[in-house]
């Protein structure tokens, strides 16, 4: 095991897949000479050349569409969008084409395209550069959605994404790029899609947490154990499509209580979706309604004190868990708790 930053784990995945398969190539804004806005592709242009690592103009819809066409013709394009917010410019190609071509044309052609991009608040980038859009992509049949929280998953899931035959929306997190984690040394260590990571075992409550929130939830679980004598099981689904609902349901059947945590908006969100699936599949096993902790239902504000309370932190998760267990929540956490209330 080596300890790598999340960014370097992604870089290793790209390097290994570029080396393994001639059909794999990268496209994106500033990924070559500049090395990537977040330095994920640093050094790859020098190593693999202009044919395999392509700087593009700022034309998001078109570079995704070029990826779709190249994938239809048998290549394995990996397109980087500088942030997930810019994917909105490419929604036509992502939804109408990448997601639907395999179905729309009766299965005659496949679109093995990977679209990588980071999301997330915390850097005072305001309402056009800070959002979390897992739910937008999860909504669309035909797309797979991966959202790794750890360096090991970043590497293992990206390698799987590149080898998958479906279009994959690969959602990274800006705040995780510098976070270190243990990563297996073996090149063939893949992380299977549709298999959740049980980040922490517990018996009193299940916390399902997505992307960066998986790490926040692990911290909350530690606090719950040390300060409140609550044993929380933390599940990071890792991929939202396919979703390892079985692991979530098994956990809920054991704990009978569940809190779902996401950084994105509450209405029509990932947590809403997972809560609905749990209610449909395991209603009789629940001792309390599934509770959600999500980002505030507002565009992300710039001002630091406002931004800080507009996305979930450890206290909101602790508070939600205590409430779902029927224990009093600490007043300070309630004051900043966000979500659908």
């Amino acid at each position, binding site marked *: 095991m080596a300890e790598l930053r999340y960014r370097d784990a992604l870089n290793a995945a790209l390097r290994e897949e570029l080396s393994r398969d001639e059909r794999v190539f990268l496209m994106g804004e500033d990924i070559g000479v500049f090395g990537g806005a977040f330095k994920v592709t640093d050094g790859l242009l020098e190593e693999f050349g202009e044919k395999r690592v392509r700087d593009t*103009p700022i034309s998001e*819809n078109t570079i995704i*569409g070029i990826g779709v*066409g*190249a994938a239809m013709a048998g290549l394995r394009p990996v397109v980087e969008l500088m942030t997930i917010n810019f994917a909105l410019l490419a929604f036509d190609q992502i939804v109408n084409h990448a997601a639907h071509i395999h179905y*729309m044309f009766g299965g005659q052609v*496949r679109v093995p395209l990977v679209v990588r991009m980071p999301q997330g608040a915390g850097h005072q980038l305001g309402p056009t550069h800070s959002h979390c859009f897992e739910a937008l992509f999860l909504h669309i049949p035909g797309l797979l959605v991966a959202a790794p929280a750890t360096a090991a998953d970043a590497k293992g899931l990206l390698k799987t994404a590149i080898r998958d035959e479906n279009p994959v929306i690969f959602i990274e997190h800006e705040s995780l790029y510098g976070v270190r984690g243990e990563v297996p040394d073996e090149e063939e260590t893949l992380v299977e*899609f549709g298999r959740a990571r049980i980040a922490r075992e517990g018996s009193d409550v299940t916390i399902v947490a997505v992307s960066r929130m998986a790490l926040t939830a692990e911290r909350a679980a530690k606090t719950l154990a040390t300060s409140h004598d609550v044993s929380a099981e933390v599940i990071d689904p890792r991929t939202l*499509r396919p*979703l390892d609902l079985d692991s979530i349901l098994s956990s809920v059947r054991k704990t009978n209580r569940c809190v779902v945590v996401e950084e994105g908006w509450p209405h029509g969100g990932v947590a809403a979706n997972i809560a609905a699936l749990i209610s449909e599949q395991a209603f009789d096993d629940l001792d309390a309604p599934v509770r959600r902790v999500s980002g505030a239902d507002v565009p992300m504000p710039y001002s630091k004190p406002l931004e800080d309370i507009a996305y979930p932190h450890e206290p909101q998760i602790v508070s939600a868990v205590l409430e779902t267990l029927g224990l009093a929540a600490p007043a300070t956490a309630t004051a900043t708790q966000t979500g659908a209330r």
Partner: protein
Amino acid sequence: MASSSETTRDLPEPALAREWLETMTLIRRFEERAGEMYARAKVGGFLHLSIGEEATIVGSARALREHDYLISTYRSHGHALVRGTPPENVMAELFGRADGCSGGRGGSMHMFDAARRFMGGYGIVGGNLPIAAGLALASDYEGTDDVTLCTFGDGASNQGTFGETLNLAALWKLPVVFMVTNNQFGMGTSLSRHSAVTDLQRKGESLGVPGMRCDGMDVLDTYAVLCEAIARVREERSPVLVEAVTYRFRGHSMADPEQYRSKEEVAHWRERDPIPAFGRLLVADGVIDEDQLAQIDARAIERVDAAVEFAEASPFPTPESLYDDVYVLDPSSSGWYSVRTTDPRRDAEESTEPLAFSQARDGDEVQQQITDALAREERA
């Protein structure tokens, strides 16, 4: 544009010339019949016909090699036919049947034939341009000399993807012939009311894409100009823009009352109908005689009759196939790819399969329940 004097033109080999006329006639008769079938409610959704644009389709596609890519728009029946997709499968697609060339999933706007390198009809105006560039990139990446011909309408030249894709194709030197089929209207808005520059071949100049123009009502001129464009793109591996000037005789779709143009204007263009014009030319040049001309038309009608018969007989896709081809499924994965609210295959009580859960029991029963409910809605 080349001269249109009918007796002094250089014709291709007689067999080729005959095939062009046959294919243009087939497209015409197919489209007419598709319109009839639409009126008889055999075809649903939108139906965009290519009547009037047959020379543009045949003249351009015949300038391609078999291995080159062709990609078009929501007006795509003719492009499938010209590439050799059997009319049976195109008609079956219009009928929403299992034997349709897109398995009944796409309909009129989304024809596809991967084996014949017809890479699709696309419902979003301008949506196919980036895909064309991607196909061309793949050709270069793999070291072939294939070319991609990308057709789109005058309306698409105002989309963001037009500017973005032409810039990128010129920048990366991608072998694409962008062919703007200028049929004078973006739906019901005439060219001069939707484009500041109406000389469409010039619209790529500032993006580094040189322009050419052909008379899209003339199959010989279309073929000649496209041959030149394709040869240049194949050799230089860099895009060109060709404007094919044509006219759609019918409305934008079957739902178009055509209040934006005069009957006189349509009649004027109909005088230049590309099919009779080319037929007369072949007769005048002795390639065919009047009897053979009539036979070509009769054979096209027979072919379309057979296509309708085939489509009628083809089954609808089964309810069980609803979820087919949403994903390329990994059989080893235990995750949920789809939330199936109408999976007819299993009883919910017996659910062990992780991919799905079911509210329905039996495919035919589901279909019947829905049919009954729709009938009740219509009566209400």
